[in-house]
């Protein structure tokens, strides 16, 4: 009796185990800043990921997707991100690490991905070197040089000879400054002044006055999205730099959809280069923006939401192709060279660097149907990260 029972239990357990194996969900650990100064990043990426799952179902390659979100606020503290990654791997037993609002977070987690052999899908962190930190990293967002170079090229080609650069005084700012200078000077332009402004800066008056006094053809700005950009653009208008014949050119994060409304009409006319605009005209984007508006009526989709969406797409496609395998090497091999039509346009994963290759657009801020939009008027196709060349 006892023995039979024992066998019965064992058998039941066995079937359970097998059944569980087949339907075992794929766990994705999303490490994002959900509070603190970069809370908006986490929110947008989270929205993008969930929107994808809502639209395309949550089962790929026969396995259900399960998300575990961890808040690594403030997002700049690598130690926190790393600890969360360790926990996700060790305790929550996730199969894939994803998210990463800011570069330090991605840098700190990279060794965990390598050691634990987990694929790591970077959905924002934009410093060029991120993908070199682990062979399991795939990036679906952008790199800073990638979105900086096109506006420099455009400026050099369109009669802008002298540029004054204004960047936030921190790592990414220094990178943007370097890339702009490199591309712009190579294109025949001249940098007539450069200034690095503190990240906590209440007043741009002295810098703007300096720009005005120097009288360049244009001023190039890179500032973290948020009140700095707003303050700069408003100051630019107030001080009459436009009337003094100075153009405002920037990377697209200055006027990305989430913060452009805070600029108001001051932003109209800003020329910038970026990889995604809500106003991008394509059926994919139309479907995406409509679904987004329905799911999150109080927010506007921006590049981070799209990166979350595309990151999830990449994971889904890989799972479908590998039949649900989450082996890191297999995952990365499958992801390499993958091409698809994203809401932002055609994109692919560079097989050599595992970094994203995409079309970068040159846009101008305009009012479209009462909303401030970045309207694309030029583009560079299949643009690779120039920071790695």
């Amino acid at each position, binding site marked *: 009796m006892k023995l039979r029972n024992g066998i019965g239990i064992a058998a039941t357990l066995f079937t359970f185990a097998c059944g569980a194996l087949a339907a075992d969900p794929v766990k994705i650990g999303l490490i994002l800043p959900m509070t603190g*100064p970069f*809370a908006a990043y986490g929110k947008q990426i989270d929205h993008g990921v969930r929107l994808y799952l809502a639209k395309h179902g949550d089962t790929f390659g026969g396995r259900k997707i399960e998300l575990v979100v961890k808040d690594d606020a403030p997002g700049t503290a690598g130690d926190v991100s790393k600890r969360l990654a360790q926990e996700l791997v060790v305790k929550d037993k996730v199969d894939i690490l994803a998210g990463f609002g800011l570069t330090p977070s991605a840098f700190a987690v990279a060794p965990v991905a390598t050691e634990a052999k987990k694929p790591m899908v970077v959905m924002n962190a934009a410093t060029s070197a991120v993908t070199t930190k682990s062979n399991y990293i795939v990036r679906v967002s952008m790199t800073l040089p990638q979105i900086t170079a096109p506006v420099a090229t455009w400026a050099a080609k369109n009669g802008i000879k002298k540029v004054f650069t204004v960047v936030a005084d921190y790592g990414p700012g220094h990178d943007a400054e370097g890339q702009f200078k490199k591309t712009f000077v190579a294109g025949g332009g001249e940098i007539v002044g450069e200034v690095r402004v503190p990240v906590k800066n209440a007043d741009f008056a002295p*810098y703007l006055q300096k720009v005005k006094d120097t009288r360049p053809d244009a001023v190039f700005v890179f500032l973290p999205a948020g*009140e700095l950009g707003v303050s700069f653009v408003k100051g630019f208008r107030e001080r009459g730099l436009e009337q003094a014949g100075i153009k405002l050119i920037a990377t697209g994060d200055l006027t990305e959809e989430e913060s452009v409304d*805070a600029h*108001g009409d001051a932003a109209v006319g800003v020329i910038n280069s970026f990889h995604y605009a809500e106003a991008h005209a394509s059926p994919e984007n139309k479907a995406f923006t409509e679904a987004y508006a329905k799911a999150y009526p109080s*927010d506007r989709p921006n590049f981070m939401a799209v990166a979350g969406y595309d990151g999830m797409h990449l994971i889904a496609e890989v799972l479908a192709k590998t039949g649900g395998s989450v082996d890191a090497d297999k995952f990365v091999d499958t992801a390499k060279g993958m091409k698809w039509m994203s809401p932002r346009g055609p994109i692919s994963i560079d097989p050599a660097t595992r970094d994203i290759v995409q079309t970068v657009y040159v846009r101008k801020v305009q009012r479209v149907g009462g909303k401030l939009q970045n309207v694309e008027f030029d583009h560079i196709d299949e643009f690779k990260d120039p920071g790695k060349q």
Partner: protein
Amino acid sequence: MTIVFDGVAAGMLLFLISIGLSVTLGLMNFVNLAHGAFAMLGGYVCVLLLGQAGWPFLLAVPTAAAAAALAGVVLERTLYRRLYAASHLDQVLFSIGIVFMSISAAHYFFGARQQPIMLPDFLLGQFVLPGIDVGIYRLFLIVIGLGLAYGLHWMVRRTRFGAQLRAAVDNPRAARGLGIDVDRVFTLAFALGSGLAGLGGALGVEMLGLDPGFPVKYMVYFLIVVAVGGSGNIHGSLIASLMLGLFDVCGKYYLPQVGAFIIYAVMVVMLIFKPQGLFGRSAAK
């Protein structure tokens, strides 16, 4: 010249956003780090009235200040008054708690994004005088700042309320003995402090932006002004703000490499030579 004007305007903005703290910290001797939370409230009220309700700017700003003052009264009546006798450290922690709660609440109600603000046309742009470009909004800030400084100074020094307030702070028991309603005086003073915070917040949105992180982002600036100015001193705060604004703007214009250093360096140097602040009362608790 333009740089000097900008420096004065920047200083005036510092003065506007920190003067409320001069009242609570300086006059009432309460380290209210939640000052920025009241300022944020003023900012949000102002933005909502302008954007959603379409009120005119000049009406929305005082309403924002009134809303912050009202919130100040409510909180003072329920919570703050229990801590008047507590140590500075307790007050710091208590008000940091309020800051955290306000950040989360703002996040909940308004989201994480920057709030837009549209100034009326007559405050936009600048006009050019020989040798100096005058930003109209900056000029507006300077005028309001000077008006406030004068008004407050007059109120504290010349009115009955000011005298009662000073008496109540210096020696509450004696003040009570003189028939002053100390509780009421403190409530009013706290309302004044938070109302001024709200006013500063509303006027500052244009230049400082507004998102849930506001109370923390600018906390350091409020404190610097009050610490350098010496607590409890309207014209001390004014002069400290103007000095910091001028140093900061000129430093950034002429020595942009030094950047954010200047404001901290100025503060530390000043405090080393004048530990009580520029015009401090040495009788701090």
